[in-house]
């Protein structure tokens, strides 16, 4: 069997629910099993990339810090859409890790080049 690729899509903010954390867990699992993993953060999920998150008072782990560890798992690139950045008025270069922002055509191409898509 040839190496399959998986696109993990998350659309949720980091602490409103466990979605962001559990999307990340899928991405890391895919990487551990030597799949080619891409992480696509759309809509509220771009908020996972806001710097300066300080979760001490709400008793949650800092998800942004966990996203910083993605390169250790050979997930070098995080994607978002121009539309998602515009939704919250964010600039890619001010986010951590800084995502690649795709237009519609590129978004469609990203989906097309993956064998499997898992939305969380």
């Amino acid at each position, binding site marked *: 069997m040839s190496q399959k690729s998986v696109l993990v899509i998350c659309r949720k903010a980091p602490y*409103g*629910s*466990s979605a962001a954390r559990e999307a990340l867990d899928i991405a890391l699992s895919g990487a551990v099993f030597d799949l080619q993993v891409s992480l696509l953060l759309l809509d509220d999920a771009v908020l996972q990339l806001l710097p300066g998150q300080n979760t001490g008072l*709400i*008793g*949650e*782990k800092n998800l942004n810090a966990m996203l910083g560890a993605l390169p250790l798992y050979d997930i070098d690139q995080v994607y978002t859409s121009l539309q998602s950045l515009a939704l919250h008025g964010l600039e890619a270069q001010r986010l951590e890790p800084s995502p690649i922002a795709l237009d519609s055509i590129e978004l469609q191409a990203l989906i097309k080049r993956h064998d499997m898509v898992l939305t969380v």
Partner: protein
Amino acid sequence: MVQGSMIYTLVVHSAPYQSASAGTALRFARAVLAAGHSIHRVFFYRDGVHNASALVSPPRDEQNIPAQWQQLAQEHDLDMVVCIAAAVRRGVLDAAEAKRYEKANHNLADGFELSGLGQLIEAGLQSDRVITFGGQR
């Protein structure tokens, strides 16, 4: 009870992990008690019934919300009621319900009690403030 103190009922609609509101409700309950007010009842409804599971087992570096409710209840003698209709549908049973439904096991944590929606209405009648913590479809 301090002067000007109020009586609260809290209604919790979400499970831990499902919504941040499960954690917010717990923080709010602590702050209510710290301010010298009293809590007539915490009522767990909808998916909030999972806050009363004895089997929730988070990793050590994550908060255990059911355990924290239990501890708070013990320290402040809280009345924690879980809607029985919402709970049995979702698999949260005490010993009596386990017997009624012929289940070998039960999982309602100590300190919680299954009862009807009437307990929410009654709590509303007895309280100065009723606050709902929700956050799912």
